[in-house]
């Protein structure tokens, strides 16, 4: 049974996927609150001929890297950054979503919304309405206007950390959420993307070379089979 080619093929398609993940990470180099992704290769066993088994490569799992990104000072009144673990909770037409991108702005109705228009939810799960005046954010998420507290922004975490799924618009679908403790909030700052260009580029080179190696292997496999057929065909 000729399996060498098939095994290499599973590796090749996995590498192609990983290249796409790296490309997506680099494309989101300057997306505030973006979290980089990685791909995990796992072994995939197949029953082979003559009672043996064959291991194939399977790139079917991913990791969301939740490392803290850097901070940029913007000076915006409604630019919030989270220092530590936790997410903002926003309401979208599809349901509640988590995000680390803290660039909000008061809407025409006076509620705080994301650039896509999704309202930010406070610790009680209701949208935040902003009164007039000097708005200040305390480290624990309390918002005050001219020194009068009017809302408290809640920080949330998914009950199951593995359930985090990326969604368009720097959002995460986290399933069930629970209040997160221990993180502090900063005003006038935005958290950068946590993509490290150096790591991504080195990963990219690795993927590219591994892919070329695989193609070279397929090339030689092709020659070998050709040789066998020619020898047997004489």
């Amino acid at each position, binding site marked *: 049974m000729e399996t060498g080619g098939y095994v290499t093929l599973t590796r090749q398609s996995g590498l*192609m*996927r990983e*290249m*796409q*993940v*790296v*490309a*997506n*990470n*680099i*494309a*989101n*180099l*300057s*997306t*505030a609150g973006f979290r980089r*992704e990685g*791909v995990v290769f796992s072994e995939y066993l197949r029953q082979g001929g003559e009672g043996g088994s064959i291991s194939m490569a399977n*790139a*079917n*799992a*991913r990791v969301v890297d939740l490392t803290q990104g850097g901070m940029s000072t*913007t*000076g*915006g*009144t409604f630019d919030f950054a989270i220092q530590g673990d936790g997410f903002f909770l926003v309401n979208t037409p599809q349901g509640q979503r988590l995000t680390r*991108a803290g*660039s909000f*702005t*008061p*809407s*025409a*109705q*006076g509620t705080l919304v994301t*650039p*896509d228009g999704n309202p930010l939810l406070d610790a009680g799960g209701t949208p935040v309405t*902003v009164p*007039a*005046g000097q708005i200040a954010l305390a480290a624990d998420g309390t918002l005050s206007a001219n020194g009068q507290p009017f809302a408290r922004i809640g920080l949330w975490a998914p009950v199951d950390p*593995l*359930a985090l*799924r*990326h*969604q*368009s*618009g*720097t959002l995460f679908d986290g399933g069930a959420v629970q209040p997160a403790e221990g993180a502090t909030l900063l005003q006038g700052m935005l958290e950068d993307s946590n993509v490290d*260009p150096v790591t*991504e*580029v080195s990963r*990219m*080179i690795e*993927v*590219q070379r591994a*892919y*070329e190696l695989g*193609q070279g292997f*397929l*090339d030689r496999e*092709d020659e070998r089979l050709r040789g066998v057929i020619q020898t047997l065909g004489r």
Partner: protein
Amino acid sequence: MKALQIAATGMTAQQMRVDVVSHNLANMSTTGFNARRADFADLMYQQLARPGTVTAEDGTMLPTGIQLGMGVRPAAVSVVLSQGSLSQTGGDLDVAIEGRGYIEVTLPSGAAAYTRDGSLRRSADGEIVTSDGYPVAPGITIPDDARSISINANGEVYAYFLNQTQPQLLGQLGLASFSNEKGLEAMGSNLFLESAASGPVQTGTPGAEGFGTLRQGYLEDSSVDAVREVTELIKAQRGYELNAKVLTAADQMLSATTQVR
């Protein structure tokens, strides 16, 4: 090979960032100009293997599955609402707004537009107009024989005459504010229009709750910070180069594939 398109979205985004930076730098000395900032968000994700897919007969599930991101898109170009510094001009009709608020002007079409540029002028018929000649609401007319004009912090405009010791009150300049100033639609020439996103206009007098005060003889400088824009430019340029590198690598992988016999 989607990495090619993904890298292209990254390059487009960084290019837009450079556009925004160059617009800011071009307006470094525009009176009352506020810097703009480009914000990005990631694009949709393609579900290749849904989390929760059963992978074995005993009910083993994929805990995370695999989703592939499709790149980046511009989410917003928003105005950075920070007060620029005030520079003294000494002009009678130069007013800077300290704090929130916009001066309302009337366009030739009769529609209202709003500006932070307080370099006002006196038109041929004595009306107070902007440097583009649009009348400032509520139309205030300066008599021909007025010796000098004084505008106080609350926007009251007084005229002094040669033979009178007491100034004469000509009118009061108002200010306009919006619940979402970032939602105003920019129309160039330092003018903004009300939009569905900005919320309805609220007018008030300078110095009232939620409004700034006026300062005669000063103009508000552009709030563009050159140092910050240049760092932004460097970041955008490097980001662009990185995405171009991904494009090259993806291309080489493709060519490795095509070279297999």
